[in-house]
């Protein structure tokens, strides 16, 4: 059995990035779910917030006595390898007419139609929400479609834009600056503060980590 261990990288005087994997993938995703579940159900004293990423989880502490990091890491290391059940599949209607579709096709050496076919032919998994409110980082992009981020990010990308950044695909949940390649657009509102209720504030986000997503092409 491979011995996995979490490394704690300082990120300012009161925070650490807990690095649990070298690269994204199935093992990293399972580790992230196991670690965040442990932080959620049994937070260490003084923890203000945790934020998951692909290969790391940020933990931020309130000012005060230094947290017992060694004890936390021992506890979290024991949780690695826990299996977490997958979430439901959501269909998302997408109009594939983004301004960077041709750039992605050229980079991949494919036709635009082939790019659409490959992008819509995959069931993606929501790895995490982040970057912007309710923005899903979707795992499972066909490696042929991986395209480097733009050298200079756009200052405005519209909500609903379906995009590829490096080897990830995602859907912009709100308008804002962004450096990903825009390939299409959905009318679905992935983030809507109006959906939040006191009992379920997380309902503001259409998708949750672990959910799965299928893009269904719409006629232009």
């Amino acid at each position, binding site marked *: 059995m491979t011995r996995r261990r979490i490394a704690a990288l300082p990120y300012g*005087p009161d925070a650490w990035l807990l690095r649990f994997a070298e690269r994204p993938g199935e093992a990293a995703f399972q580790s992230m779910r196991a670690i965040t579940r442990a932080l959620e159900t049994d937070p260490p004293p003084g923890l203000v917030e945790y934020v998951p*990423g692909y290969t790391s989880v940020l933990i931020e502490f309130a000012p005060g006595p230094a947290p017992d990091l060694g004890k936390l890491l021992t506890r979290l290391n024991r949780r690695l390898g826990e299996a977490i059940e997958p979430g439901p599949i959501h269909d998302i209607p997408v109009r594939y007419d983004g301004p960077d579709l041709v750039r992605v096709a050229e980079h991949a050496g494919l036709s635009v139609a082939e790019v659409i076919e490959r992008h819509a032919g995959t069931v993606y998994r929501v790895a995490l929400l982040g970057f912007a409110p309710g923005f899903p980082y979707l795992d499972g992009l066909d490696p042929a479609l991986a395209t480097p981020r733009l050298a200079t990010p756009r200052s405005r990308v519209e909500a609903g834009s379906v995009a590829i950044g490096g080897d990830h695909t995602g859907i912009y949940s709100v308008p804002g600056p962004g450096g990903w390649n825009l390939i299409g657009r959905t009318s679905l509102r992935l983030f809507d503060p109006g959906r939040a209720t006191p009992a379920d504030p997380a309902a503001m986000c259409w998708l949750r980590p672990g959910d799965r997503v299928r893009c269904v092409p719409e006629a232009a």
Partner: protein
Amino acid sequence: MTDVLEVVSPGLLATIQDGGRPGWRRFGIPPGGAMHRGAWREANRLLDNPPEAAVLECLQGASLVVLETVELATAGTWGARAWRAAAGERIEFPASLAGVWHYLALPGGINAERFLGSASVCARARIGAALARGDRLAGLAAPRGRFPAGVKARQPAATFAYDDSPLGIWPGPQWDAFDEASRTAFLTGDWRVSARSDRTGYRLEGQALVPPPGNLASEPVRVGSVQVPPDGQPLVTLNDGPTVGGYAKIALVDAADLDRLVQTRPGQAVRFRSLA
């Protein structure tokens, strides 16, 4: 409470802000809140408000008119002061070389809708909206007719102003992955704040840094992180910025120095010094 102020012009940007909504970044919600924490707190202190009360944050050029006589306090670019404003009085926050952000407090804090425990507007997240001409503001407490005992009612602008002394930084998670030349260039360089700066982040211009090779898996980003995109021009993530990102983070600006950074106007100089 009744409306006591009306927006004549919001200037470049006028929004309601408080301490923000930390704790929701795993849903992608940025912490938000007042850009200049010291000025936000001072405006509330001058009126004996709860420390976390919501205030009006003005970028520059805002203009308001007083509808009913009321105690007001301002703090920020234009210094700090508390006074009783008479109905009909105009309040102006024109552009200033001294800084960027200015705050206006009402008795008890501004009455505003809250989301996830905070009244802070985050236009990028479609949480609330920036103020527009004709919008009216009310305090949560009636005008008191007095000021808290011992309040120093005037402070010079310099208290909250831009100054060019170096900002303290901690090494970012990718500090060791940057080459020696880039680390040195970052720490010794004279950076200029770009005009493409806002509540999400301040862009810096200077000698291009070289980001570490390879694609970084998207990872959490703290407020104050100095990210280096492929074009080598650093971007300091601020209150309304992304919660996760794939650019290498060379450094983290110390939280205590963010107030000075955010008062830096486009074209003004920023320098760094290591706290590690």
